[in-house]
């Protein structure tokens, strides 16, 4: 090696590192937002729609120069952790977020995971946005969890009431997976049905979460011939199979669920047999979607190849975190400031037409504002897509 090449080998890396350093100085500081939830297995669609919504929105925000919070502009970085729907892994995920100094986390997606991470979140000063329904997570003395969607005990009564008044439903049956979320949603559904004076004809049949053939499971329920069959907390992977089995066994009544579903999955799995299936939709419809929502859908589809209707709801959590931090920049490192701001926070809702607002709700269900306000959209599946049955608001 001659002197020139030795010099070049010493100088070039130095110049390169200086250039990279200068580039790094020019970039915005990162604001890390976490995700801990399920992105593998039968319920993967729930968590993946979260992650992809956050990533699509983060890329979009970073493209337009970042987010200005208290005079400083940040790029958004999404840090994800797959808890595999296992509470132990959810705890590990939340601990990872704490180690990385992340204050705001979206998820977990299910009840036991959300309950399991509570001590970690509270000890480490993390605000988290679960998609789980236990009231204890959101009611005092708990204060770090913010429900990221409409709960089954809020949507269930609205759906049953609508079907009782408009479709003449008098008898109802429930079927659920044998795990905590669906069972608690079934209990909420039974209570709501009783309160409405509906006759419950079957409420004991459950199935293993990894069931692949539902015909033997659902046969005893179909024999009770209910007006309405409720699939409590059904995972998107299971809904088309249960619907198909029920219809093939000759069930003519209505079928509904309080969880969000995916139109493509329903069409592929059950086809026309899924026509008339009622579910809670993503928090948007063509009638209420703003241009920003349409652009979000287009960007998401471009990034990931296929849109998920659930992301109409899942897009909101990150938006609430960022807008609340904008409203009170001190909250960027201080979740107490965040909590204080939640009581009075209000900002324009970019995803809805008109003068809709982002605001924290939940006073009537939890005794404090620990739920994000998203529209309750109830859909009916027909001809391969969801049609809006009705839209409501929740507090």
């Amino acid at each position: 090696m001659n002197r020139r090449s030795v010099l070049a080998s010493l100088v070039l890396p130095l110049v390169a590192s200086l250039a990279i350093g200068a580039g790094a100085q020019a970039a915005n500081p990162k604001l890390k937002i976490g995700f801990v939830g399920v992105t593998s297995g039968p319920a993967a669609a729930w968590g993946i729609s979260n992650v992809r919504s956050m990533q699509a929105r983060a890329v979009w925000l970073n493209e337009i120069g970042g987010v200005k919070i208290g005079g400083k502009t940040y790029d958004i970085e999404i840090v994800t952790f797959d808890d595999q729907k296992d509470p132990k892994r959810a705890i590990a995920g939340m601990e990872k977020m704490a180690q990385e100094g992340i204050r705001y986390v979206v998820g977990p997606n299910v009840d036991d995971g959300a309950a399991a991470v509570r001590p970690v979140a509270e000890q480490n000063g993390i605000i988290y946005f679960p998609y789980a329904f236990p009231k204890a997570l959101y009611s005092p003395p708990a204060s770090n969890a913010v429900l990221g969607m409409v709960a089954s005990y809020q949507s269930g009564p609205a759906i049953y009431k609508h079907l009782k008044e408009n479709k003449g439903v008098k008898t109802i049956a429930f079927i659920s997976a044998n795990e905590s979320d669906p069972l608690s949603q079934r209990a909420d559904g039974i209570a709501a049905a009783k309160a409405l004076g509906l006759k419950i004809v079957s409420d004991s049949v459950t199935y293993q979460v990894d069931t692949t053939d539902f015909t033997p499971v659902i046969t005893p329920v179909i024999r009770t011939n209910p007006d309405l069959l409720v699939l409590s907390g059904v995972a998107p992977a299971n809904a088309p199979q249960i619907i198909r089995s029920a219809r093939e066994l000759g069930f003519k009544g209505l079928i509904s669920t309080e969880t969000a579903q995916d139109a493509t999955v329903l069409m592929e799995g059950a086809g026309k047999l899924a026509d008339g299936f009622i579910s809670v939709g993503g928090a948007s419809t063509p009638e209420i979607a703003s241009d920003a929502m349409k652009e979000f859908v287009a960007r998401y589809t471009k990034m990931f190849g296929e849109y998920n209707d659930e992301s109409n709801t899942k897009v909101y959590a990150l938006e609430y975190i960022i807008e609340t931090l904008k409203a009170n920049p001190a909250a960027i490192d201080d979740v107490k400031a965040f909590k204080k701001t939640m009581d009075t926070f209000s900002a324009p809702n970019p995803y809805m037409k008109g003068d809709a607002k982002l605001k924290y709700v939940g006073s009537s269900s939890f005794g404090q504002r620990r739920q994000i306000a998203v529209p309750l959209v109830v859909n009916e599946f027909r001809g391969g897509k969801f049609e809006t049955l009705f839209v409501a608001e929740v507090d």
Partner: protein
Amino acid sequence: MEQVLANGVYLGAQYALIALGLTLIFALMNVLNFAHGQLYVLGGFVTYTIYGQLGLPYVVALLASAVSLAIVGAALQGFLFGPVIRRSQREESTMLLAAGIAFLLDAVILLLFGEKQRGVPKIVDGVLNWDFRVIMPYDRILICALAIAFVAAFILYMQYSRTGRALRALAQDRIAAELMGVDVSRYSMIGFALGAMLAGIVGGLLVTITGVNLGMGGPTSIKAFLMVMIGGAGVISGAIAGGFILGMMESIGLSVLSQYGDVTYLVIFASLMVFLAIRPQGLMGKPWG
């Protein structure tokens, strides 16, 4: 009761076909293939892509599932299990390898086919309704018949073909088979390919009924092991018996025990523990291996 029995026969036929591939691989190579469920899922996704997405005839898709999984099986044997078996005498080496392959296949399937539940158009429309005593969609009847036909074809192939005889010889005594001129490495690869092909065929058959998703692999493997344990590890007839017994137990349990909640598999597992305590080699297995 007729409906319960019909459901049991249908479940049993598909379970038997799943268990056959697993038990074949175990018999030939003493490998507990924890990735068998993932091979089944992969077979389902191949049929989904060719029949559901590309719109080609179902027969072509089923054939593609069988062939592609046979190639995957041969590759797994040739590049992974074969070398590990040659280099390591410890059985846990192949078990760990199989578990690793299961995770790998899960990741590959997620990358290639995504996380969503996938389904394909029904291959036959209509429902058989026998006076409301037995209600069975025609596509289930067809899939059940095909599964039974594949089981029968497999037995005949193993019984009467030259390859089948070589595989059986290999399963009975590896060293004696080698001394009699059986090319062990070649037939090991054929056996593994055949086992994986059976998993692919079941995946291709069942995607028309239950659809397919990423998470099905693990639970399918567990059920397959259950059937093999009931029937006797490495015994073809045992796997078939185990499949039908499990299918019938599941169907009867889900009907009779439905009012007590999800206790069917609790009862099945408890019964299996008692059964294995009395007869650890399974129904048709030999106590000496």
